């Protein structure tokens, strides 16, 4: 006991504490260096604030809008774009995920193929898809829907595979043991077990798509983004600020709505 008095009892080994310290230090250094290389000066940003607020106060406020009908139509277009692309993406992703879940589809190699394909769709930003598609289809909603469908398919395929894998792991064996064949087992047990997960992910991609479609609109994919870009180009900042507020309202209400739906579905 006497020997323990002057040395405190540690709760973790010396090595693991040292590793944590080194890791944190490296993290801070990387952050500081990166910020330095961007040339971003926090002081400058603080000083320039005046100009920023001036711009907001003089040009953006008060919001003014005389073309409510155009605004509403653009908003609805954005909403339709987000929902349509989430729906089409979900259907495509489900077919891909069924083939890409090793527990469900035992054809060798097909899982890696599907995962690779989905990863390509997902990792090319939808903004890039939109640029390519605008070149092919011209400016319009169809470009937005296509670009969002592509990226949604990529994302949902990955999430659906995870969901299906988990559902299959827990629910498939007892049903196969009854002598049932694969298709009924998938339809009667795996898909019902995976359904809440699917719906949660689809709602999530609706949220993402609403936000993305605003940005995609700015490069010509239709909807509220296109309208906003037009106002900014015309220096009509009052109308632009109204549009931004409208986007905020839509994003927040969709989030509230999906939160609500998620709660209902998951309980």
């Amino acid at each position, binding site marked *: 006991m006497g020997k323990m008095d002057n040395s405190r009892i540690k709760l973790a080994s010396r090595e693991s504490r040292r590793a944590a310290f080194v890791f944190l230090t490296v993290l801070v250094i990387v952050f500081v260096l990166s910020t330095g290389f961007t040339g971003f000066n926090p002081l400058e940003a603080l000083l320039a604030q005046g100009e920023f607020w001036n711009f907001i106060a003089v040009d953006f406020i008060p919001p003014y809008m005389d073309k409510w009908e155009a605004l509403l139509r653009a908003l609805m277009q954005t909403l339709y774009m987000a929902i349509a692309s989430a729906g089409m993406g979900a259907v495509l992703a489900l077919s891909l995920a069924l083939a890409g879940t090793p527990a469900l589809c035992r054809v060798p190699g097909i899982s890696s193929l599907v995962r690779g394909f989905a990863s390509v769709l997902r990792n090319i930003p939808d903004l890039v898809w939109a640029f390519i598609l605008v070149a092919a289809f011209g400016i319009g909603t169809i470009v937005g829907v296509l670009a969002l469908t592509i990226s949604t398919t990529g994302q949902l395929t990955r999430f659906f595979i995870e969901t299906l894998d988990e559902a299959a792991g827990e629910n498939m*064996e*007892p049903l196969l043991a009854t*002598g049932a064949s694969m298709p009924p087992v998938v*339809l009667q047990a795996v898909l019902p077990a995976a359904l809440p997960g699917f719906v949660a992910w689809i709602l999530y991609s609706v949220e993402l798509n609403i936000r993305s479609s605003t940005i995609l609109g700015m490069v010509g994919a239709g909807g509220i983004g296109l309208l906003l870009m037009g106002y900014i180009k015309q220096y009509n900042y009052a109308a632009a600020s109204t549009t931004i507020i409208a986007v905020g309202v839509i994003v927040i209400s969709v989030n509230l709505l999906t939160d609500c739906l998620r709660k209902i579905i998951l309980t």
Partner: protein
Amino acid sequence: MLPAGAWWSCGRICLNPVLEVRNLKKVYRGGEGPAVDNVSFSMARGEMIGVIGPSGAGKSTLLRCINRLVTPTAGHIFIEGEEMTGAPAVRVRGLRRRVGMVFQHHNLVARLTVMQNVMHGRLGYMSTLDGILGRYQEADKKQAVEILTQTGLGSFLYHRAGELSGGQRQRVGIVRALMQQPSILLCDEPIASLDPASAQVVMDLIRDVCHRSAIACIVNLHQVDAALRYSDRIIGMYRGGIVFDGPAAELKESVIEKIYNKPIKQLMIGDGIKGGIRDEIREGMHSGIREEPHDGIRDGIKEGLRDGQNG
């Protein structure tokens, strides 16, 4: 076919066995040594075997080889005289219908209702299209309601499986297996995660099913006391091999020590077994078997099954 009452043990050799396992061996890829090694035994209709042994002895592997959830490395398995080993996938499915299985966990699809889960037991008998669409026969549904009612689950038909207690879930799992009209029921540690009261209800149900409907049951158990109390016959496994196969009454302390490779003092099993009051337990076991059904569960299940077979 033997009469329904002919549940008694017929030892290693029986005429017309419902299950025969011959020189079964399973070596897992990457596993060190065989998980099951040179296991042979056969079973009569309505016999109840308790399989005991330490973790890793190969109890689960043995059961899973019988319905080919695991492909055996060598040996033969005959279900009602038909060879399961080496059978093509379609035949395996046909044979699996006659073998019900109850797992420790994840028996049921938690989100689906009790009825939906129980009807899954019929999928093996339906065409793929009917199975996909869930077009179950009305007669089968009627039978499901009957059996569920007889097992005391009549008021839970439309509850989600996830809302049930552990014991209720195991009973639903057993009813789903019964819907297969099996001749064999495999139970892999069915009471391992249950409280003692639910465990007893579940074990009672398994024994009723076994003796009254002449379904041969193999039950993997951690609890030696439960195995002694409920089984006609005990198989003791150690490191993949059978080290004991005989009537429950013959399971001596020395054998238990061999199965668990530990002196009996270091094993947490009922004092009755340790302290040499084994006769009492044996009596309890027999009276348990002769005991009349509490609420007509047994007869009900038997009738339900018979109706199902006729219709």
